């Protein structure tokens, strides 16, 4: 008396199929309707960001404002946004000299002399809010995610502090908050943009080098900016679907 291999495999296969179907059905049963946020419809927005390098003066207003607005630890120096100064000697774009003293928090002390044949400029950096973010894909618990309106957010109550996402971000935009040991990053001032305000960094940028934009809103000035400027994203070869568009991005910028 026995059961041959073929039968055994057939039955096991059937049970496995039925179980997975039941699990799937359970998921569907549990789904409710999402909570309605007052005056803000997730589906109506798709947030992006534009940065005009040719306008950045390296004052550090954005860095200071971000720390104030988002309670980013002042010291040690962690950042949700920071500014880098590039010094490209004699057009040698392969070997730029980059400095960012305290992320630009206290501005940039004079370092390079004019007329030495070099190219110098400031590059503000922040989370690129990628459409295909590598950081959210590696989170083992669903603590960081792409929101339906195109913002990469962190669920602080869910984060284990495993740091996979810190390593996965090709732009170095994440850090572990030493107070909570959970990950922190630019939230695109989600608490402001959902109330109709702009981000703290855009609000305080004196030259308009930073621009928040709703890519789903045809009336948003970001469309005119993207149309009239030659823009590029950081590390396009990573295919992250980055939504921080830079005007005047030099090849030396990493």
């Amino acid at each position, binding site marked *: 008396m026995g059961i041959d291999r073929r039968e055994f495999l057939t039955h096991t296969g059937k*049970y496995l199929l039925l179980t997975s179907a039941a699990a799937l059905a359970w998921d569907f049963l549990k789904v409710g309707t999402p909570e309605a946020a007052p005056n803000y419809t997730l589906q109506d927005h798709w947030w992006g960001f534009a940065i005009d390098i040719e306008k950045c003066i390296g004052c550090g207003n954005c860095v200071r404002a971000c720390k104030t607005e988002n309670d980013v630890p002042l010291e040690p120096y962690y950042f949700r946004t920071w500014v880098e100064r590039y010094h490209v000697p004699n057009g040698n774009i392969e070997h730029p000299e980059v400095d960012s003293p305290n992320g630009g928090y206290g501005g*940039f002390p004079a370092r390079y002399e004019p007329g030495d044949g070099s190219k*110098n400029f400031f590059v503000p950096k922040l989370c690129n809010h990628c459409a295909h973010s590598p950081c959210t894909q590696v989170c083992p618990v669903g603590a960081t995610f792409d929101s339906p309106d195109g913002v990469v*957010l962190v*669920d602080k*109550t869910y984060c284990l502090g495993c740091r996979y996402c810190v390593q996965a971000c090709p732009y170095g935009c994440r850090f572990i908050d030493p107070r909570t040991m959970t990950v922190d990053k630019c939230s695109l001032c989600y608490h402001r943009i959902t109330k109709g305000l702009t981000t703290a960094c855009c*609000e305080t940028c004196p030259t*308009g080098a930073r621009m928040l934009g709703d890519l789903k809103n045809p009336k948003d000035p970001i469309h005119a900016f993207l149309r009239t400027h030659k823009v590029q994203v950081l590390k396009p070869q990573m295919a992250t679907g980055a939504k921080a568009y830079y005007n005047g991005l030099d090849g030396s910028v990493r």
Partner: protein
Amino acid sequence: MPKFPKDTEHLARMAALFLAGLTLFVIARALLVPKDFHELGHFRTGALADNMARPVAFAGREACAACHPDVVDERQGSRHAVIACEACHGALAKHAEDPGSLKPARPDPRTLCLVCHREDVASPKTFKQVNPQTHMGGQACISCHKPHHPEMT
């Protein structure tokens, strides 16, 4: 019709064990996974509300203009008109909510202007930059320029 073996007791036992395990799994999952998980994606929907809940520190220029239209008029036609109030005056959402609770500090005119206008080769060439030694020889900027309308007339 698949042929079932006559003695099926061990199969029934296995099925019972499997069912018990499944039930345990389903119950544990229902208890441990938040109700709003995986509604919009692989995350808690409530995390969106958590991110929205943070208090605002910068009130925004519209809030300032609502009470200080005189300053808005003063800045009219100036290069500084596009700059938000809080870029120089600091985060003042508390002041906007209850003006008595927080009186904005007067920015230090000896350092404030140079935050932006100190000479640096990395700044755009079209941006007004000065060397504090040669441009004003130790004088305060406000002895010649009004911060709200800095153009010399």
